[in-house]
């Protein structure tokens, strides 16, 4: 049984210029322990898809099921609790809290769950070491390079040992070499930890390195590598 099932997912917006269809009739499935690359031009609905899977948005119609559980039926409060416990989010602009050190940014995740235990501190230190950031643990985001910030953001997303990681354009602000490093980091985490990851990207070279690729154009799936 697939970990993630998206069925006939549609999302309309009421924008300033009228009715906008961001996603239309999108369906696909993703097995656990695999990296899905969602590819498409700007405005194709990639990020909307990510938001719907994360429970940040509610679909106009269709279903999102994660581990058999209906994400699309959850209230905002339930979705927030679900993300705290089971989802790792990596934003395009990393969104690290500027006044927290790299270590504290990681500890924010258990803090939001209610309590920072000694094991959480050990886990955070371990992740920073694994990502080659142990010497940057007490540095603020402003003191880190773009690549370091993105690595801290990925480490933060791993703090709750998520079932699924949702990653939005992780390499868009990085040069090719650093982008490749970040992607390898993600692949390594997915394959070592048997974790599932959905990565949105506009870069075909990055998407090509995923286990499965979904190509979106104008809110519709035009290619699903799993189906071919």
């Amino acid at each position, binding site marked *: 049984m697939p970990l993630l099932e998206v069925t006939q997912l549609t999302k309309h917006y009421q924008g300033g210029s009228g009715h906008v269809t961001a996603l239309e009739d999108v369906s696909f499935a993703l097995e656990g322990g695999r990296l899905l690359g969602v590819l498409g031009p700007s405005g194709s609905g990639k990020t909307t898809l990510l938001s719907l899977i994360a429970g940040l948005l509610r679909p106009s119609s269709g279903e999102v099921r994660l581990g058999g559980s209906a994400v699309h039926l959850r209230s905002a409060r339930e979705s*927030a609790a679900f993300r705290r416990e089971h989802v790792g989010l990596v934003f395009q602009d990393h969104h690290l809290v500027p006044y927290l050190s790299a270590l504290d940014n990681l500890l924010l995740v258990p*803090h939001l769950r209610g309590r920072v235990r000694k094991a959480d501190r050990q886990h955070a230190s371990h992740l920073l070491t694994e990502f080659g950031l142990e010497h940057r643990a007490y540095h603020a985001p402003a003191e880190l390079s773009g690549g370091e910030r993105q690595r801290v953001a990925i480490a933060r997303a791993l703090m709750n040992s998520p079932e699924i990681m949702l990653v939005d354009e992780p390499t868009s602000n990085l040069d090719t070499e650093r982008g490749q490093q970040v992607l390898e980091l993600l692949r390594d985490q997915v394959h070592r930890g048997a974790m599932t990851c959905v990565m949105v990207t506009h870069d075909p070279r990055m998407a090509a390195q995923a286990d499965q690729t979904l190509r979106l154009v104008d809110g519709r799936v035009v290619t699903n590598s799993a189906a071919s």
Partner: protein
Amino acid sequence: MLAVKELLGSKLKFGLIALAIGLVVSLTMLMSAMSEGLVTGMTGAKRSLDADALVFQGDTALSLERSMLTDEDLAVISSAAGVAEAYAVGHLIVTVRGPQGSFDAHVFGLGGAFDQLPITEGEPRSPTANEAIVDATAAAEGVGVGDTLSLTPLPGELRVMAFTESRRYIMAPAVYVSLDTWRSLRAASLLAPRSTQGSETGTEQGGDGADGPPIYATAALAGTASIMAVRLSPGVTPSDLSATLSPAFEVATPEEASLAGNGMNVMVLAVNGIQLVSLLIGAMVIGVFFYITTLHKSGQIAAVKALGASNYYVYRQLLVQISILVTLATVIGVGLALGAGSGMPPAMAFDPNPARWVLSLLAVYATAYVGSLFSLRSILLIDPATALDRAEH
């Protein structure tokens, strides 16, 4: 965690806003102390009379200056149902010639109950004839314990036997004497000026002949006290006493009586109005500051909400920051207010009342939290989905 770390990470920004709120707090504290000082200075001697109720002559609007009770009145009040104890109080405005010049004073004749006066210097006992317990603010006029005060235009003199405190009336020191001394001073105040104008009967205590004192003076001399201070039996209220007595009397608590007359209610209203405006300004400063801060970091808040933070969590962080800032501002504000108060001349109405300061500070906290509601609205409106690429929406 987030709240405190953000404060520590932006010390200058939050320090400046704490200073701004601190200035508002100090203004509020100053207004509170000046309001209290004004009330004490204007009515301290009246308000602090040790009594459950004060009984005035009817139709005098609780005015100490206009009320006059006769022997018969005092007897009626003393024997009224519900009255446990009563003592007469006389009031008279005089001019005192002190070591540094003349100043106004209010002579209060007490028919007992002198132990109600807190003695700060001198002998703690009831004054004998021509002795007085004087409010300590008279020291600013060069008066000391043991001095003899000359009263003008009266022929009397009073020896200062002790100082008391917080007993002023209409911003002038109160001078406490025995009721007998007060009666003789009052008689002199009514008659002595006429004797200097050549009246042959000016020193008489009455008389209704063609050569006697004018009828109004005779009528006034019949009064033996200005008001009566009453301690009520358990369970009896001033309203009960008012209902018992005839309409020829007015009954009020010392607090109510202190706010009547001399424009006191208008003055207190004005000072309280300034305090209220100060609090509103404080609420606006805090509200607008945190509203702008919240808007400024809406992307960050969206990201934290996307990671799973609830609106309650985000708002709680805001409340923690407000609490810390207002506490810091309170320390700054109280320090500034006390510093300003200590630099004021003794004649200035500045009388910090701890209970009122605590109330004012609670009001500052309350208005700060009300101000935070601006931010709560924007927190609720921040969509966590915007933490992801907004361009797609």
